[in-house]
């Protein structure tokens, strides 16, 4: 029973690992290194700033409200966990 449970666990872990590695949105390096476990996010992680969906949307609201735009350009995604 324990033996079967261990095999099942092993298969699930391998499948999960394979899926993670195939997801291009979680690549850890341009050279395609193996994905590493996601770091555990902490309280308040990227929770503070309200982001518009696009720069065009930001321009529309900024024009309406007379506010400057903060446009953050990065290599990565702000709506995903990690760095």
């Amino acid at each position, binding site marked *: 029973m324990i033996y079967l449970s261990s095999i099942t666990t092993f298969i699930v872990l391998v499948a999960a690992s394979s899926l993670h590695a195939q997801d291009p949105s979680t690549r850890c390096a341009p050279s395609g290194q193996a994905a590493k476990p996601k770091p555990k996010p902490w309280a308040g992680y990227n929770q*503070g*700033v309200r982001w518009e969906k696009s720069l065009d949307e*930001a321009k529309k609201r*900024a024009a309406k409200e007379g506010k400057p735009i903060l446009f953050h350009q990065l290599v990565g995604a702000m709506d995903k966990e990690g760095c």
Partner: protein
Amino acid sequence: MRTVTFSNAEVAERVNADFVAAWSNRAPDFHNDDDGQERRIFEKSPDSYATKNICTFFLTPGGEVVHYVAGYSSPALFLGDLQLVLAARRTAFDESFSLKSDGLATLHSLHAERAKSDAWTAEGSISYGDLTHRHTDECRKKHHYEAKYRRELHQHWSTVAALPTLEKVRFDYLYGSSFTEECDGATPVTGRSLTGG
């Protein structure tokens, strides 16, 4: 930026109250979910790391750039950038966000004033996840390059002949360190380092 600065309550409150925020990934489909590099940056440069990898632009609603700063800035430093842009909004532009007749000269003065002040004084402590860095006299001495970047960046802005459009500087800006995560599919950044880094 997002794990420290944009997660800081004071920064978020100021951004949400006085700015309209948006972000863009210059390498679509790329996302680094390993925090090792950020932890190393935090341990070595907890206040500023002006890498060309990322850049935060401040724009008018029409898309003219009033200011930008490359790389990571601590909450305390970034609040200074927000204050500068808000001062520019109040004094260099009219109600409809058009540049006043003397607006460019006003903007020059604001940046020139920042260029004269020695960038910042690192004080207190700053946290990143489970890490906390407490500033000491010794670590303040390491700020030379980051301070140089900010000083020369403000000097540059204090002499611009006109406000550039985002399109003009979006991938061609002044940075400190040349570190970047550019990969296949990423729009490369040109420009130059102000620190030789």
